[in-house]
């Protein structure tokens, strides 16, 4: 009962409501703009959150996360270009339906299913995050090490692209985290006599570089690309017939999305693909998929928004990010002096349930904004890249500089921008680098402390049941791509 009152608290706080309003609005704008999205947007907004108290800062970031994930659907339906990678599956039926003159109906279904998916996942978050946190009380250093390894292998196996390349990217991310003074011995590593590197490489320069700057370079290679926007009169609420047709799909995809979201990987994208394919498998009219099926839109959108709440479960309960955007949120928590994990649930329930409540409100807010303002948001796509990206560059540079007022951070950001561009070009996802970077300290720290506990005996890891379970799951995760390959080929064919 007490927790419920904490959850409802944001409703009675004018400050939090204003933060939620602007967070949702900003998230929608970011989601609508192809190439941006909640991860880049969250990283850009992170320096501004320093002016806010911790709860308001995290509420802002989570509102951006929820609304940004939905916003991708608007561009997917109207210009056949997903605003976020998670909306890729929405293009398959959203755009054909819009071309038939039913853009309003397509957007209406995307809005309703995204909202239901989002709310469903917050309920999952409210129930499962405390349970997972309770379980984490049993964890010592070896268990956390095994958990982090499991997280990284899951990221490699169910993330986008080649699992081996994902593992390389994750190892690269962990390697970046080793730059600077060793936390146990203060011995310099990879600093090459540069004083600024002694403190290590910050998260923000890397994330802004890998996402915003590399995307700017990618956009520079696509200047001749022309978007054709489908006309939109008004967003329509789905009809009773549409609800009858899709309610099972929405619920199924909400469950799938929440589950996939909990696993540490780029949840939304994978969730929407699986949600879409399951919607097709269970549909009475699978032949309609790809030609403007309303079930296809519902399946993809409910799943990708359900992944948002799911991804927050390991982030808050264990400090292991469930997606790239939750890695940014995790950084926000750390910057504001909040350490996620079981202690947070015991010591600051009002803070946690405040976040849960805010996510619930953000889902309702983007429903309202989406329903009444989709036409306006669609116009944002008309802002040309030649105006938009130089502005984003100015924001990226100032934002990166502002955190530690270090010009070196700006050089690091540009360096990782170029690295990120070539990584993407040659089929390496940048998401594992981010997760690897944020988990790096945990992986190395827990490994070394475990070895101190075990007196250097590596085999002692196998005597810890929980650690052994995570290692076994990690091996299964590594073998999973062999089974997944067939499924993906089938999905791509479809």
């Amino acid at each position, binding site marked *: 009962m007490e927790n419920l009152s904490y959850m409802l608290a944001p409703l009675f706080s004018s400050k939090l409501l204003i933060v939620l309003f602007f967070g949702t609005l900003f998230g929608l704008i970011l989601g609508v703009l192809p190439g941006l999205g909640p991860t880049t947007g969250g990283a850009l907004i992170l320096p501004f959150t320093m002016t806010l108290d911790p709860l308001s800062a995290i509420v802002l970031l989570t509102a951006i996360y929820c609304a940004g994930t939905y916003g991708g659907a608007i561009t997917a339906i109207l210009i056949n270009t997903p605003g976020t990678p998670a909306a890729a599956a929405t293009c398959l039926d959203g755009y054909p339906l819009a071309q038939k003159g039913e853009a309003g109906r397509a957007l209406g279904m995307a809005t309703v299913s995204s909202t239901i998916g989002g709310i469903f996942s917050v309920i999952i978050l409210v129930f499962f995050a405390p349970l997972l946190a309770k379980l984490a009380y049993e964890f010592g250093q070896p268990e956390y090490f095994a958990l982090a390894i499991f997280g990284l292998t899951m990221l490699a196996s169910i993330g986008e692209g080649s699992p081996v*390349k994902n593992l*390389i990217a994750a*190892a690269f991310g962990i390697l970046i985290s*080793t730059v600077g003074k060793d936390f*146990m011995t203060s*011995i310099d590593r990879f600093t090459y006599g540069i004083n600024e590197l002694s403190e290590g490489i910050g998260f923000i320069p890397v994330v802004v570089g890998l996402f915003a700057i590399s995307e700017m370079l990618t956009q520079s290679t696509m200047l001749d690309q022309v978007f054709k926007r489908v006309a939109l009169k008004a967003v329509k609420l789905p009809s009773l017939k549409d609800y009858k047709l899709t309610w099972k799909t929405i619920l199924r995809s909400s469950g799938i999305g929440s589950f996939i979201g909990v696993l540490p990987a780029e949840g939304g994208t994978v969730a929407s693909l699986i949600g879409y394919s399951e919607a097709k498998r269970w549909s009475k009219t699978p032949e309609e998929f790809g030609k403007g099926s309303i079930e296809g839109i519902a399946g993809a959108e409910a799943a990708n928004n359900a992944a948002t709440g799911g991804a927050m479960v390991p982030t808050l309960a264990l400090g292991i990010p469930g997606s790239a955007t939750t890695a940014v949120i995790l950084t926000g928590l750390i910057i504001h002096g909040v350490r996620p994990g079981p202690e947070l649930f015991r010591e600051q329930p009002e803070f946690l349930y405040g976040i849960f409540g805010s996510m619930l409100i953000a889902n309702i807010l983007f429903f309202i904004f989406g329903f009444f303002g989709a036409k306006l948001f669609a116009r944002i796509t008309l802002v040309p890249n030649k*105006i938009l990206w130089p*502005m984003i560059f*100015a924001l990226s540079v100032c934002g990166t500089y502002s955190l530690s007022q270090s010009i070196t951070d700006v050089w690091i950001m540009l360096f990782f921008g170029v690295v990120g561009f070539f990584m993407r070009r040659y089929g390496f996802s940048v998401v594992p680098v981010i997760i690897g970077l944020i988990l790096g300290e945990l992986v190395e720290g827990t*490994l070394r402390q475990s070895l101190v506990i075990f007196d250097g005996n590596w085999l002692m890891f196998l005597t810890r049941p929980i650690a052994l379970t995570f290692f076994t799951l990690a091996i299964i995760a590594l073998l999973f791509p062999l089974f997944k390959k067939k499924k993906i080929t089938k999905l791509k064919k479809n």
Partner: protein
Amino acid sequence: MNNVLKKKRANKSSLPFFLKSSFKVSFIIILISLILLITTFTFDAVPPILNRGIQPATFPKALLVLIIFLTSVVFYLSIKTPWKKESKLPKSFFITLMAFILFLVIAKTLDFFLAIAVFSALVSYYWGEKRIIYLLIVSILFPIIVFIFFETFLGLRFPPGIITNIYYN
């Protein structure tokens, strides 16, 4: 048998393996990893009497060996898959890259704000914006708004330079 010979000839007529992108990428990653691996041998070590657990260099060493091994796997797998011709990068990409370098030079020698303004104007112009008013908005007005915003709300002090010095004085 004939088909096998034909395939071999077809492979021979295509580009040599060292020009294929998968080889080039794998080669660069392994080369950089090897350089970094060599660097780890220069890290200071903790005297055995004080050492608890592993040495500071051990963990990065293990990571680099893992990266080299996995990159070799990527290269091995890429041999088996059909090779796609790599698309050339357009001129606009190199101009943007050059603008980054120009930004670095101006920010380091002259002024941070000026660097942003020059970069924005240059990129916007080469990306196709020829209208003066929009170029001014992108390169002057927007950076001014951003500067004032950061200074007012975050109390940020930008690095000294010819323009920022005038502003601060």
